């Protein structure tokens, strides 16, 4: 299973492809895509450069990032694990 993610153009925040081509800043709201759906979503995201910057697919199991980049993708989803930026805005600022 895959998720589609990108950074949002206007503020750079992490976004995911949700059902119906909506975007969400919340990982658990991301659409869980099989291989065919994933390629379609990727093509559609690429055709919307006014929203999706550098869209790509993330491997996931039950909606949770898996595979080699799982730590990076978890940090992208939940924000920096430490420091002056806590708590994370992506969820609060999601539109």
């Amino acid at each position, binding site marked *: 299973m895959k998720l589609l993610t990108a950074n949002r153009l206007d503020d750079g925040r992490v976004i995911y492809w949700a059902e119906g081509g909506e975007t969400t800043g919340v990982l658990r709201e991301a659409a869980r895509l099989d291989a065919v759906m994933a390629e379609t979503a990727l093509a559609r995201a690429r055709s919307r450069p006014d929203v999706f910057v*550098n869209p790509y697919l993330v491997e996931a199991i039950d909606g949770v990032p898996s595979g080699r*980049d799982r730590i990076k993708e978890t*940090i992208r989803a939940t*924000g920096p*694990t*430490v*420091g*002056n*930026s806590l708590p*994370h805005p992506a969820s609060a600022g999601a539109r």
Partner: protein
Amino acid sequence: MYRYDEFDAALVRERVEEFRDQVARRASGALTEDQFKPLRLMNGVYLQLHAYMLRVAVPYGTMDSRQMRRLAHIARTYDKGYGHFTTRTNIQYNWPALTDLPAILEDLASVEMHAIQTSGNCIRNVTTDVFAGAADDEIEDPRPWCEILRQWSTIHPEFSFLPRKFKVAVIGGPNDRAAIRTHDVGLEIVGRDGNDTLFRVFVGGGQGRLPHIGKEIATDVRGTELLAYLTAILRAYNLLGRRDNIHKARIKILVESLGIEAFRAEVDRQFETLRDEDLRLPQAEVERIRAYFAPPAFETLDGSSGAFDRAVLADPDFARWNRNNVRRHRQPGYASAVISLKGLGEVPGDITDTQMEVVADLAERYSFDEVRAAYEQNLVLPHVKLDDLPSVWRALLAAGLATPNADLATDVIACPGLDYCSLANARSIPVAQALSKRLADLDYQERVGPVRINMSGCINACGHHHVGHIGVLGVDRKGEEYYQITVGGSPDEQAALGQIVGRSLPSEAVAPAIQRALDRYLEIREDGERFIDTVRRVGHEPFGEAIYEGLDAAV
């Protein structure tokens, strides 16, 4: 301090307007990311894991209170109330929106600051000794030369599309507090011939995947010919440097592959024609720039201070801060104070907007309106009267800025790592914080004395781990964060690269391993030896043994 002339002001304003237009076209979708990326990088804008990142230059690390307050204002208004100082005296904002960037750049321009040439393959922000103009071991204040280089290199057409980025640092005396030998070009003032300043020149230093210590290329380049000489170096690099492979494009690779003799011969050939051209700096121009950096109006004092002496006796905490964070000044009765941005368990280099305001007030009131950014990701009040040090300390203490650990084990240099950076293999901040907490006992830190510990989240080496006395590098082992430790690096006039001591460790093993290495040093040091002296005497092996002591062989 240098003030923009009309040319500088117009140039920065034009760049803001140009970028405003580019951002508008990007936001409307008229520019694609591929088209926009080189434009944003020319203005210091990166796209990181969670947001855009803006890198603002603090030229040669010198700011006044007005500028510091503006940096605080930007942190508060457009970011999350903080900024991050880097090893190259830049400040990074981690959360600006694309659409706010033109307003931020305009705010910066109003205090003579900008983000030009903080990324991309150009000559970057020139850095220097944080104690420039204050240190008692300085031959000459290096900052006028930094300013001359800044003016010469800003938007210089020949040097805007180099094979790779190009970093220059300048120091004013023999003790290197700016890591010049880790730079593409390092300049050391060695003396004077009449009115003319003489420079020793190093070339081909660099960190990253293939680290190199800069090699001496010249011993006595004249100040009036400095721009001609640097142009000769850059021209040789532009002609001969590789552009086909990004990992082989830095000047360090060129110098290494040609050999320093052959590279010197090529530079000398270029220099012969260039030195007679109009690149010669008129002495009057040097004097004009020097005047901006004239020493402030110091009072004539006898070098002792009753208020200071009483505070040292009365308050052991002040005494400790004074021992560790206060540096000698060339002017009797004055000192330089290091403001540690390495509070217990804090993020190295981070400072909040309210703390910036406090620092700005202190600079204005007690340090001739000057504050500096240091290689070590700390700040410095360069010119404080001994009489005023107790008041400065109390204000810093109240703001959480009086951690008395400058140059000690918890004064860790660390890059943002995987918490922010899209290139990272592993996090660096939590490892730095774990070390900070583990070594929190200040008596222990003082017993260990000065030791430089550096962490990078990947081989790009933004945390300068190669030249840390102890270096920590984040590596990726099958999707897990691991850390490789080096011992024996050094960023100063005895610059050296650290040696890898063995296999990489999991995150929670790093701080205890470093403490064992420091304990080993306490056991085997001889009188008066600093950590790095002991490493130089006995080699890295005893420390490697201590680092792996008791660790499961399977780790």
